């Protein structure tokens, strides 16, 4: 993950791989400090997200939410964790024991690995300023579904298997619009490095690339199983989905993984579209956290409002709406960058792109339909004899 040779070379050349005020240039110390910082930041943000969602959704639903453990219930997640630690760990008899054990671990860690290339509190304040940071993010973020599929397969539970199959289909379909949406930002920024993208982001790309932001947000919601794309954990259909057969600490890891992926997704959203750590007055890392929480607020607002899509409708939305829109957006962005290379930092592109985005979304909302879905099936005897 960390390219030590590169780090050394960069340090010797006096480059800004390290934060400007960072004392010493020992790459090992650098790696240690950032790994600790990333784990601490991720875990704190996971707790913050859990708390924000439980209290926030409760407000949407005329409830109070957890308010007993600690002041205003902030320690509720800790109390839940202690409860889960003390619970019995149940492994189904027919389960594939090793895969069953490994699945929660595989599901959890990609969420933290993404932060290796996310600048946290300044230009260069990241574990490793990869030139291909965006590709790294995409590669790691699609890793999460592996844990889901392992869990679904190893549990030897039919609901879990359905959930795992849905997960794979969903991931394959939504990866492409996600990549396309980030690609248009990369074209504008002129770099694949997340650090460079934030550095070049004087106007947040949310304003310059509204359509890409929306597509990324939806595709990311599908990738991290947030509503209305939470088919993997569709409680009313397949109970708890892939983690139906998990209890105790393994379940807790899945719970952390679910929010961890949300944290990672929101961090990428904040970095690509909300100019990352940049902001006045407050410390930069706080700005990053605030932007992530704002993005997450929209996510749980949607969760509290909208019902779930059906599996074929989910695929339809991905392939028929998000993908063509993302491709068109890439083309438009390329033309803009090609013809007005100087105009990109100007505010003039903001209204233009908003108009284009609104027009495209309007056309698609009029033409693409997600309805239908009945399948003509063979009779019972035909199936038995087949």
């Amino acid at each position, binding site marked *: 993950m960390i390219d030590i040779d590169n780090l050394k070379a960069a340090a010797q050349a006096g480059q800004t791989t390290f934060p400007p005020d960072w004392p010493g240039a020992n790459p090992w110390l650098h790696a240690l400090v950032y790994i600790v910082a990333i784990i601490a930041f991720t875990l704190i943000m996971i707790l913050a997200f859990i708390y924000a969602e439980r209290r926030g959704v409760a407000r949407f639903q005329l409830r109070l939410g957890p308010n007993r453990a600690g002041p205003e219930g902030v320690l509720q997640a800790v109390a839940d964790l202690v409860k889960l630690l003390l619970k019995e760990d149940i492994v189904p008899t027919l389960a594939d024991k090793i895969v069953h054990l490994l699945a929660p671990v595989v599901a959890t860690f990609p969420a933290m690995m993404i932060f290796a290339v996310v600048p946290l509190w300044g230009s260069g304040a990241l574990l490793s300023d990869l030139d291909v940071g965006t590709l790294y993010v995409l590669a790691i973020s699609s890793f999460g579904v592996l844990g889901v599929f392992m869990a679904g397969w190893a549990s030897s539970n039919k609901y879990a298997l*359905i959930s795992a199959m849905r997960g794979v289909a969903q991931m394959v379909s939504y990866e492409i619009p996600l990549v396309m949406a980030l690609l248009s930002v990369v074209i504008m920024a002129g770099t694949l490095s997340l650090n460079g993208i934030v550095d070049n982001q004087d106007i947040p790309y949310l304003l310059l690339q509204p359509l890409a932001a929306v597509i990324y947000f939806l595709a990311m919601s599908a990738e991290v199983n947030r509503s209305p794309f939470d088919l993997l954990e*569709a409680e009313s259909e397949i109970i708890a989905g892939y983690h139906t057969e998990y209890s105790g600490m393994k379940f807790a890891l899945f719970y952390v993984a679910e929010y961890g992926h949300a944290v990672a997704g929101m961090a990428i959203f904040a970095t690509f579209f909300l100019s990352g750590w940049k902001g006045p007055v407050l410390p930069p890392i706080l700005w990053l956290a605030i932007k992530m929480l704002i993005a997450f607020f929209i996510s749980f607002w949607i969760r*509290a409002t909208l019902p779930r*899509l059906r*599996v074929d*409708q989910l695929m339809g939305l991905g392939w028929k709406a998000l993908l063509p829109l993302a491709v068109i957006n890439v083309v438009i962005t390329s033309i803009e960058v090609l013809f007005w290379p100087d105009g990109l930092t100007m505010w003039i592109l903001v209204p233009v792109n908003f108009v284009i985005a609104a027009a495209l979304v309007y056309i698609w909302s009029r033409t693409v339909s997600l*309805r239908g*879905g009945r399948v003509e*099936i063979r009779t019972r005897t035909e199936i038995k004899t087949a």
Partner: protein
Amino acid sequence: METTQLRTEPFVINLGPHHPSTHGVFRMRVVFDGEVVVDVEPMFGYLHRGIEKLAEGRTYTQIIPLTDRLDYLAAMSNNWGYVMAVEKLASVPVPERAEYLRIIVGEMMRISSHLLATGFLINELGAFFTPLMYMYREREKLLDLFDMLCGQRLTYNYMRVGGVSHDPPPEWWPAVKRFVQEMPSYIDDYENLITTNEIVLSRTKGVGVLSRELAINASASGPFLRASGIDWDLRRDDTYSIYNRFKFDIPIGTNGDVYDRYMCRVKEMRQSVRIIEQALQQVPKGEFRSNVPHLIRPPVGDVYGHIEAPRGELGFYLVSDNSIAPYRFHVRPSTMINLTTLRDLTIGWKLADLIVIFGSVDVVLGEIDR
């Protein structure tokens, strides 16, 4: 180039009896081909308590609490259907004030029941409890009103043969008036949230269509029947109590899909509010219960009394042998008969639709299993 064909097998899932969306302990043995439903076999009986047999050993008055336990989300309507059958059998007169009270609480019960039906339907569509919580808010107010009336929130035991058990306390009337005034704006709220939601439309329009022929052949009833475009409501077509004194419309659907069932229920709530409004203006003073002996000995014979309960036609068939207990007590459960169409509705749809279609039938297992 030779193409290899993937061999697939059907996949059997026992959906229930401990599944979150089966409204209790209902079990479906479903054969799936991928996500597509190939075959459905409903199985029930997990909540059987032998109420029909129990009733044969009890006096006519003692049976009323048992009827609470049938459709426990519309206990007032169950009480009402039963006492109406006994009144028919034993020719007991009912004072006018009691009839008005019955209509008011019966329509309140209908609102309460439809609130839960639509709330859980949207929940099964995947909304994260928000519409349900909004509907619980109004249901809570109704339960408080029932609590003021008879001291119970779920199993009321309020109706009596020849009237009702209590006259409402004086503060009950303004509380009902206030509720009736507020309710239409709350229904508007739900409609704003749900009715034109694009995801709700794409999930429910055209899904689980119950054809007119099938609806009639299966002797379906209630909003489930009316959503298929059949204008049939016992309140008007076999008028009981004093329903002929009120003006109300009977909302019917056109396609018979899940969306129409939802719309029928929402519109029925508005009509129920209208009926309560009119009843509140007309309710007379006087006795709330006629003079009935503790032990009723109806003449030998049998009777079938039915009412339009929130979920459909609820009937009670009683056979009397001139003793203090019925010789035979039989319930025509509305939802069980509606549910017999489940296989025809769901085949060819996906797992997610199966849950939604099942939810749109709006079953209560207490009534199905008895």
